[in-house]
């Protein structure tokens, strides 16, 4: 069997997505057999020069010129580019204030006003700069999703992605509905499922780490939350934790 040539790396991120791959302890030996990890700085020495890949799996948002340079290199060098994780797909936590504060103010509040500031810009998804062929969502993503992705890539295809909200799985695993029964700020109805409703299963609201589900009725969710007494700014703050921009008027 031909081995899949992979690049796995991260841009502006916490490495959680890449670590998720290393957390597939049971599958790792088999995975290493199927794939050649040509570029995977987190776990492998080696460099990018002259290499070409069947797929590049990229975690993180783009927020520095170096990120961008690496991203372009990977795009040029690989047949498929996979946006891996919420940061890569929507900007993620680092982007949460993109719409409400200027980058330079944020930088100065951390690095001080007198100092030379790092060369960086507001974090944005990979898709803002290059074409993305496949996506894995989640902060961090589920281990089964990355295994399925690698297996599919090795088979010459992509894994079919289901598209239902967190509520679907949440109800199916017989969690208490925190929105209905407890009046909590749960984003389940508008967020892409696939995590088996991890958070509501522990009694904690869905914070929306997997980004919007395909036909999110955002306007109705907003209404539901307003009805339950949450302020508009609080709701927007919570919604933008992983994805700064939402269309609050969207109904389908």
């Amino acid at each position: 069997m031909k081995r899949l040539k992979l690049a796995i790396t991260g841009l502006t991120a916490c490495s959680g997505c890449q670590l998720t791959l290393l957390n597939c302890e049971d599958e790792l030996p088999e995975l290493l057999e199927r794939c050649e990890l040509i570029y995977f700085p987190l776990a492998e020495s080696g460099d990018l020069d002259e290499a070409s890949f069947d797929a590049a799996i990229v975690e993180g948002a783009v927020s520095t010129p170096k990120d961008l340079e690496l991203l372009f290199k990977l795009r040029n060098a690989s047949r498929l580019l996979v946006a891996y994780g919420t940061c890569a797909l929507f900007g993620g936590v680092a982007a949460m204030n993109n719409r409400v504060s200027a980058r330079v103010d944020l930088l100065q509040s951390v690095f001080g006003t007198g100092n030379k500031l790092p060369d960086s810009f507001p974090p944005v998804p990979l898709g803002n700069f290059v074409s993305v062929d496949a996506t894995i969502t989640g902060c961090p993503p589920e281990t089964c999703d990355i295994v399925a992705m690698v297996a599919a890539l090795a088979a010459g295809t992509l894994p079919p992605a289901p598209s239902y909200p967190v509520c679907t799985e949440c109800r199916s695993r017989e969690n208490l509905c925190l929105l209905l029964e407890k009046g909590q700020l749960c984003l389940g109805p508008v967020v892409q499922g696939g995590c088996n409703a991890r958070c509501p299963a522990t009694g904690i609201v869905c914070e929306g780490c997997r980004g919007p589900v395909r036909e999110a009725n955002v306007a109705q969710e907003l209404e539901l939350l307003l009805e339950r007494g949450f302020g508009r700014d609080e709701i927007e703050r919570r919604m933008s934790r992983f994805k700064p921009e939402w269309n609050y008027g969207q109904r389908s």
Partner: protein
Amino acid sequence: MEKNFLKMTRLVQFLETLRLFGELHAPTISESGVYRFSPLDDPAELRLDYHRTQIPPKKYLLPFREEILHNATGSYREGHSGAKDLVLFGVHSCDLEGIAYLDRVFLADAADPGYSARRSRLTLVGVSCEPDDFCFCPEERESTACDLFLGASGEGFHLACHSARGRAVVSAADHLLEQGPPLPPPRFSGPCFPPQDPELRFSDHPLWQKFASTCVSCGACSVCCPTCYCFDVREYPTLSGGAARIREWDNCLFVTHGEVAGANFRPDRLDRLRFRFLHKYCGFTPLQGISSCVGCGRCKEVCPVDIDLRELTVTPKRVQP
């Protein structure tokens, strides 16, 4: 006179007898306060005062997600059905009718292998219930779609057998039973919401618009419905080079439900609500003309925006637009 009465005080012993017929599952309450069917390790956990479980017993017959086929060597093989002897105790009439409906779908010609394997090893013990505000039941009901039904009565339960397995249970529990007054005939069995006129879905009822704009497509109504069974099938390559085909509950309220290459036959939420109406209350081939609403009240209870499609069947004057 028959020995057909079980005193409440003997219930625990009766449950032990049921264990002879398989792993015993019954209504319990979870830590967070959700009623569900779960293994009954300790009879003290039994909650016969429940109104409805969040997920109906269909989860035992059609798991949320199931590997139906796998392909290791180039050819497909049936997945493992996971069938084992199971006794489901304390099922209400509505849920029994729900299973009866699913049986008509999945045990019909070319019976579904997984479903039928699990179904054939399932013993159903029904119990009578007290309807609450969410229930759609028009009158008290006693379903016969089970092996054995326990009708609450005074200090205990009347036992009514509806199958050979039910009779086997009763004879195994013979020493626990006593003679009771003769059983009244079952009052009413079957789905409870009458079939509707399919044309109603094209009515200019204002509720259609309202429902379509408020529905969040969370899927809860259908996930929790005892007779919803739409499924999606997806196939995933495995690392070893084979493939696994999984079947997962699908939902007619999702935009993907009617999508084909280049078109969507139900592009708007309104179209999909109509579809749901049609399937629930009018039925599809080969169950056309049969309503599948068994009156359990789950969809109404779990909907975050209070959609109740049955309201559409009330004359428009009487509902607030």
